[in-house]
């Protein structure tokens, strides 16, 4: 597990600011839920959720500081998820 000795860990301040950012995004999600955005509602909610998960995965889960192989496998998982979304949309959109 040599990558663990090499990896760079962010300081407590980074964690703190990320935590604040997550709280801010959560409050934005709650606020936006009360505003009628029509067909963009889902898009905005998903966009905010994507930013939040990117922060958690990169900083809290240390993916940003890990070897390339971890990023490749993570990308593969996201790619699979994306395909699942696209294929499901062929039903939802054309039903």
């Amino acid at each position, binding site marked *: 597990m040599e990558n663990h000795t090499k990896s760079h860990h962010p300081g407590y301040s980074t964690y703190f600011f990320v935590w604040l950012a997550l709280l801010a995004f959560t409050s934005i999600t709650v606020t936006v839920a009360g505003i009628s955005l029509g067909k963009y509602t889902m898009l905005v909610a998903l966009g905010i959720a994507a930013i939040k998960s990117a922060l958690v995965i990169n900083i809290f889960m240390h993916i940003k500081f890990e070897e390339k192989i971890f990023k490749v496998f993570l990308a593969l998982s996201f790619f699979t998820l994306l395909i699942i979304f696209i294929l499901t949309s062929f039903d939802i*959109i054309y039903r």
Partner: protein
Amino acid sequence: MANGNTVAENFYHQSTNKHKGILSWLLTVDHKRIGLMYLISVLTFFVVGIIIGLLMRLELIAPGKQLMEAQTYNSLFTLHGVIMIFLFIIPGLPAVFGNFFLPIQIGARDVAFPRLNLLSWYVYVVGAILALVSLFLPGGPIDTGWTFYVPYSVRSTTNVSLAIFAAFILGFSSILTGINFVTTTHRLRAPGMSFFKMPLFVWATYATAWIQIIATPVVGITILLVMIERAFGVGIFDPALGGDPILFQHLFWIYSHPAVYIMILPAMGVVSEIIPTFSRRTIFGYRAIAMSSLAIAFVGYLVWAHHMFTSGMSDTARWIFSLLTFIVALPSGVKVFNWVATMYKGSIDPKPPFLWVMNFIFLFSIGGLTGLVLGSLATDIHVHDTYFVVAHFHYVMFGGTGTIFFAALHYWFPKMFGRMYNDKLARIAVALYFIGFNMLYFPKFILGYMGMPRRYYDYLPQFEPLQRISTVGSWILAGTIFLIIGYLFHALVKGKKATSNPWGGVTLEWHIPSPPPLENFKEIPTVTHEPYDFSQLKEMKNE
């Protein structure tokens, strides 16, 4: 590379903890012992599933009520499905044979996370106990079918929540096993064992592990959503509450179709081990078979909605999924052709494990080809939700994975237990299994084509002769399975001692004593040969 047969002690006599007796097993972190604990557990549930199947077939021996009420029948087919799928087939090959042989085949002393491995067994047991408890609590056993389709599963007054929660827990066991196998394969390969020198069983188990990790959470989330809907009346799936029932089917099959590959991929890996050993010939198209495992694992994600052609899904989605379904047949075909090509001009020794594999190729091919009938939109509308689907499913899952479970058991039994079983009885069992299996399931293709719906308690008089043949077949098949369990138990106690390499295999498990010592190897081997290079046999004999 080889370790001599000088180690008198084996893992049955050496413990990873200070305890003796049953505690030395219950607290063990040895991958082989955990594999055997899984073997006992899955075999126990397999027998329960068989008994339930026999009762259902007995009920169907003639039209009208024979043994039980319709509601009991509904619960029995649900239980049969839940037990056979979640407690037998899914963990059957990876958790039993993967646990036992994956570390040995890559030259490791254990899996990467031995404690997590033990935890996965306990999680499995807790899930199984919860499923059993749900049968006896007020409300009664779940009656939704193993697919838990909404809106019925939201409205049924039976113990749906607890039973599906059991499936949720079992999912964690599967994920933990997957994480362990991926890490073990990446981190613990012996020196010289590059990815393309790994045995094909390892490749198949590795591909399976990825599906276990990525797909299982989807069903976990779906189950939680059903529980939330049942408990709090939130409208997620139930159309009466503004939900979308087809969304449930999407989410359920996004897991459950790849789960079919969790079941069949390791079985294909076992076939790729047995055929070269008994043909004395290196595998034909090693890389093609290895890559086809990954291709099946990947394309397997893209075909789920072929279970939903008649659900009311959009036409666009239907033709796209039908097309993708035909594509998944390609990597499966790559495997079958390469297996057959391996046997060509080989020096075939038809020992029982090989005969089991021949059984598999025949039964699985019927299962696979009838899958194309179901994958085509037009024909699927005619036979959907009939016995045709039941027959197809059993040919693929039981004829495929179930048959290979027995093949693997017969192939690796001498290595796992250090004993040989009765060869003649094993050959008789293969023949009886073939007869019983086809008698039980082939009539269902015809019945389905004639319009007999699945999951029905009663039927029209014209279906009686074929239903009766099917029931007699169930007796032959179940009798054969009990015969197999019987002679294997007898072999455990009174069988002749097995040598370290009774079949002339060349992968790493055949280089170590039978049964293997604790930690498998005295020294970690350095791999110099291709996995199926039979020129090693001479060196191995000299050692």
